[in-house]
């Protein structure tokens, strides 16, 4: 999606969060345009949920500020709360209430009044919840729990949605359906902020941010990230070879000078090789593999940048 000069839907400016003398989020800045799907990635504990909590006005930042649709997350928290939907990392609905009761509870909390019934009908229809209305929320399977959580978060028609690991622990079909629905939302102009650990989900996002050890390391669309010079140094290129059932000599490869980040995707051996390494030579050394030029994957991007950051931290 093209970036416009229009006011961003989500804005983080030098957001910092300290818990005691531990810094959970350090100087994180980014913009998310309206209608964009922004993917926020990073290892566990890197500060993703904390960034979301600050943007939603749940936590007061120790430094910097966040804003939603031009309103400050801290100073105008009440206005911000009306315009956002939030699905927390943990399933957080009432397991002892039925699907219907959970929905009408959240509708009341948001003061929907006479709009409650039509809105409930709408989200039930969009997320196909009708057969489950009388079932208690605690008895639903993971995928249906997430649908219900999404339905509750959408009742008040938020223009910005925060989804914290919405697909963690749900099956591939439910995952696919959820993403189809997210696209539908984005198509209607809703801005989506999604955290995930799945690379295929990252590929589906318009833009990505990668946070590691409380710092934002990367920002850009998937193609921009793959083209980042830190991922592919100028004196190296990515090589790939089909394995066809033969075993990959991983140990030998990692000991080889000029070869880095060798990994296997299904039947393909994938590595970063220095320009001094000859592809044909490498193939022979690996027992007759046929290497050709490849491109870095998003996983390569994150793995390499994490390694670089680790190295930087060790030296400093």
């Amino acid at each position, binding site marked *: 999606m093209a970036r416009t000069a229009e006011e961003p839907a989500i804005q983080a400016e030098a957001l910092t969060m300290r818990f005691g003398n531990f810094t959970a989020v350090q100087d994180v800045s980014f913009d998310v345009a309206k209608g964009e799907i922004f993917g926020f990635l990073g290892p566990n504990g890197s500060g993703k949920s904390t960034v979301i909590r600050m943007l939603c006005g749940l936590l007061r930042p120790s430094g910097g500020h966040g804003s939603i649709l031009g309103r400050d997350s801290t100073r105008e928290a009440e206005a911000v709360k009306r315009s956002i939907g939030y699905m927390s990392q943990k399933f957080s609905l009432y397991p002892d209430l039925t699907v219907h009761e959970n929905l009408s509870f959240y509708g009341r*909390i948001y003061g929907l009044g006479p709009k409650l019934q039509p809105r409930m009908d709408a989200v039930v229809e969009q997320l196909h919840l009708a057969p489950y209305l009388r079932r208690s929320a605690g008895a639903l399977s993971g995928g249906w729990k997430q649908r219900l959580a999404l339905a509750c978060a959408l009742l008040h028609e938020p223009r910005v949605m925060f989804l914290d690991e919405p697909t963690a622990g749900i099956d591939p079909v439910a995952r696919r359906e959820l993403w189809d629905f997210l696209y539908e939302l984005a198509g209607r102009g809703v801005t989506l902020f999604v955290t995930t650990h799945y690379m295929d989900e990252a590929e589906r996002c318009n833009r990505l941010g990668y946070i590691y050890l409380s710092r934002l390391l990367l920002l850009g669309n998937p193609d921009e990230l793959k083209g980042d010079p830190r991922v592919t140094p100028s004196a190296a290129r990515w090589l790939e070879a089909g394995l066809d059932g033969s075993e990959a000599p991983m140990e030998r490869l990692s000991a080889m000078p000029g070869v880095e980040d060798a990994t296997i995707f299904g039947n393909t051996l994938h590595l970063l090789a220095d320009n001094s390494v000859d592809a044909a030579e490498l193939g022979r050394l690996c027992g007759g593999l046929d290497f050709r030029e490849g491109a870095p994957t998003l996983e390569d991007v994150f793995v390499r940048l994490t390694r670089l950051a680790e190295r930087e931290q060790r030296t400093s």
Partner: protein
Amino acid sequence: MMRGMSGIIYKEFIQITRNPATLVIMLLIPIVQLIIFGYAIDTEVRNVRTVVLDLDNSHESREFLNRFRATGLYDLMGQVTSDTALEAEIVSGRASVGIMIPAGYGRELAGGRPAQILVLIDGSNNTIASQTMSTAQTLGIRMSIERVSPRRLSQAQLVDVRTRFLFNPDLRSAAFFVPGLVGVILFLVTMLLTSFAIVREKELGTMEQLAVSPVSRGGLMLGKILPYLLLGMIQMNVVLFFAQFVFNVDIAGSLPLLEGLALIFVFSSLGLGLIISTVAKTQLQAMLISFMILLPSILLSGFIFPRESMPLPIYWISALLPVTYFEEILRGIMLRGAGMEALWDETAVLTGMGLLLLAIATFRFRKTVG
């Protein structure tokens, strides 16, 4: 059969010690219990508040009062000037015993004629009532025997101590424990349920979901406590109903007054429940903390043991418990038919405590939720 037991034991101990707050409370509870049972629970009755109407004011009447004081059972805390005032002191709960010495007591005795003394006793607490009654009568008999001389043998008892129970004349224990129970149950339900209701949302993670919604802190707090306030009031009325129709404990005073003052009391126990919920992280912790407050509230509030007989430090602890004042109010209205004019002190203290606790609760609640 025992396969894997050592592994389970190992893990349990790790989990028990991993949660320091729970562990501390677990260790504190027996200590609190020990202190209460060791010091406060003493079935011996002492220092029963007693007022005196001495219409004789003679050497003999003063001697009689000194004998009363010497037993250690009666705490002669003051004189009144009329029999209506004497009764009012007992109805209000300021005194449990009233001694009336009629005019001419000294003259009758000096003349070798029998003289009467009237002892009014608040019968609502049957432990206090029966002890103060028997001690007063024994005192009368003993003084009579001392005055009997071989020259003047008389059939009649010279110092004739007449005792009269003002309320609960049959000394039924139900009359005493039912009002006390009403207070304790109301306290338990409102405090425990409120703290549980909030801590459960924290555990579930729904509190965070509520915090991102536009619901106001005040709306959240009131929405959380009002249902339990209603529940508590319904429960109190159920207990009152059973008290009346199963235990025949009638409400001597005004029911609307009782309900009104109960409402004031409930605010302080809801406040406590809210404060607990801001401290506790799990429902288990909330329960343990509630238990820490509940235990002294049951044992020290005067529900089981008379407060007057407690050692001073324990007496002061009991003065910090809202239930103590509510128990006074309950017994006053239900058994003695006390009206508002006799309950100002307790009502004032309860109102103050309620406001203070709610203020602390609101402040802490704002800080922890959001």
